[in-house]
């Protein structure tokens, strides 16, 4: 089971997991400091830490994971964590954030037109289109099962739309070669895009716990945590310029 942030944006001051480790049935507890390899599992750009370190960026962000002798024991143990986060003011309005220069990724510009004179010579139209949050989910939540294999190798069964990316990330997190990681998607139970990048964190956590404990580890998120911890399609605000010239 995974301990998740309740705070949308803040600074993680204290994460005391002693009581978690002492809870009945607990075998292992891991957080950012226990990761042997890469701590950031951003698939395209960096900025997606497996466990929060100092910055907390969203409600549901993983802070730690616990392995126990039963699913119920693991879920109960999570509640014993002492978590102190200094809240900051989150910004939920994309337009205001853009005005303040707070970009998720650096702005890029692409244009088929050559130069601003081209735009001035022809009629142009500025348009906006916005979409709100979309939450899409599958009947099967996110699940991963991992077992250590020979030497440093690890096997991961994961409900996963992008197994090769997960293979890469598990290898990087565990600091082992790619060929030592076998990833298999046995049964999706529904993906809808929600398991393309967001299957990887749970696979990495299960693999790390399996490596450390020497035992098979099953990690699945209960429905409420699955919904909270995994991403939605954020609201989008698009402003585009359309020009019409006289070329055929």
């Amino acid at each position, binding site marked *: 089971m995974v301990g998740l942030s309740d705070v949308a944006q803040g600074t993680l001051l204290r994460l005391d997991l002693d009581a978690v480790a002492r809870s009945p049935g607990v075998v292992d507890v891991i957080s950012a400091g226990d990761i042997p390899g890469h701590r950031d599992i951003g698939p395209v750009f960096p900025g997606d830490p497996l466990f929060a370190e100092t910055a907390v960026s969203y409600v549901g962000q993983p802070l730690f994971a616990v392995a126990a002798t039963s699913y119920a024991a693991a879920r109960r143990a999570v509640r014993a964590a002492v978590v102190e986060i200094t809240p900051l003011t989150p910004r939920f309005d994309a337009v205001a954030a853009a005005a303040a220069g707070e970009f998720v990724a650096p702005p890029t510009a692409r244009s088929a037109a050559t130069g601003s004179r081209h735009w001035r010579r022809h009629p142009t139209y500025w348009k906006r289109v916005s979409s709100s949050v979309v939450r899409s989910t599958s009947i*099967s939540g996110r699940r991963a099962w991992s077992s250590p294999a020979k030497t440093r190798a690890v096997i991961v069964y994961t409900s996963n739309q992008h197994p090769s990316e997960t293979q890469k990330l598990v290898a990087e997190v565990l600091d082992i070669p790619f060929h030592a990681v076998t990833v298999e998607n046995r*049964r999706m139970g529904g993906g809808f895009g929600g398991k393309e990048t967001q299957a990887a964190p749970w696979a990495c956590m299960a693999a790390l716990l399996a490596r450390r404990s020497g035992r098979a580890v099953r990690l699945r998120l209960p429905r409420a945590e699955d919904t909270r911890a995994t991403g939605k399609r954020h609201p989008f605000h698009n402003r585009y310029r359309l020009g019409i010239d006289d070329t055929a």
Partner: protein
Amino acid sequence: MIEFFLNGERQCVDVPPDTSVLALLRETLGHCGTKEGCASGDCGACTVAIAEPDAPPPAMWRTANACITPAHQLQGCHLVTVEGLARGEALHPAQAAMVEYHASQCGFCTPGIVMSLFALHESRRQVSTIPLAPQALEAALGGNLCRCTGYRPIRDAAHAMAAQPDSRPTWADDPELETAWRALGRASHATHYHTPQHLAELARLRCEHPQAPLVAGATDLWLGATQRLEQWPEVIDLRQVAELRRIAAEETGWWIGAAVTYQEWEPLLRTHYPAFAHLLERLGSAQIRHRATVGGNIANASPIGDTPPVLLALEARLRLAGPEGERELPLSAFFLDYRKTALRPGECIVAIWLPRPENGSQLRVWKLSKRREDDISTLLGAFHWRQTGERLQDVRVAFGGMAATPLRVPTVEAALEGKPATAEAFADAKRALRAALTPLDDVRGSADYRLTAAANLLERWALTLRPEPRRYPGGGARCVRSLNVCRPITLALRRARRCPPPRPRCG
């Protein structure tokens, strides 16, 4: 120790009293065909079929959500899961039809849907030549969600089931098996899961285990275990307490035991209070209605419980029993505050008094929720009246989802009592409503939405009282009196053009 039959084989297991059927199947017995989608009794991925000894065939198989069914309630029953349907390589008609109509994509909802279709198929074996009515299909599948298929191929498979080769499960039609599981007995042998048979035994157990939860259907209570991780070392089950299971007809009404399920209420309501029976079609799902009880719905005292507003409008009463003996209470005196009831320590609800409808009395019930089935109400309005000539008499107006408790609204009733059903009277009623109630904002609706919608339910009621059909802009007369009878089927099913919208019944 629980003794029961699973897919035709005898089982004897020992699990803690707060174990669910789903956990028993997947973790104890290693039968992983039954899936967990929500662990809340909503999605139906965990649907199983249970036969209990007191249920008469042909509807012997009742579906249930395994995630919120106490495992110990399997004592003396026959449980069937998706692994138990095929006969070797030969699929059960429910499975064969699903395959033929491509009614499975990711497959995760499929076992639950197959079990709902299995129960439907079994209940219709004597009438399989009669086409499946849309309402029956909705009733059977309303508690099964699917994210992938859009439901149409599932609907098609359901219609095609009866035409599939009739392959019977390996364990079916075996008279010795029927005798064997019915001989196991219902009373619990477990040390910490108690099944009192009479009120006196219940009282003794409550003294011995004051912290033990009382469970009947457990369809809301069990979420304490699955969602809030509560642990119950002792559990007291009410389902076999004789006094809570009786339906006693008297001259002016019925005493209906608190542990009588929604499904068991239904025939009585269909005859005497069809608007109440219609509400039950939208309450929860078949899986829920097979096990949940009206007594539980009342004792739970949720502000959005669906039966209390209707029972308040019908002036129902309760019989309570506790250490100081029995007493009666009007339901209107039962709800004190948010989830606070008039139950004294050690008391429980024994039975509910449902009055017989008086000559000329009428009832309308409208539930507003985002999903048509399987959804919690945003609000619910129940309206009772008698019409003498032009005037409304015995007006009773009750709402759920509009306050900390379900409640009648006396000022709205006073605005209509003795008045003709005019626009002015209803305008007064709506004003009284807005002055009387201050509902909350929550995820299901804002305060403003609730007030607007509740006033609109009064308007809807007013429209049903108008004698002449209304013409709507855009042409087409539509008989508004049919508002409580016209049942459009679930939107997803209706989009399949093969199923035309039902004709409204007028007159």
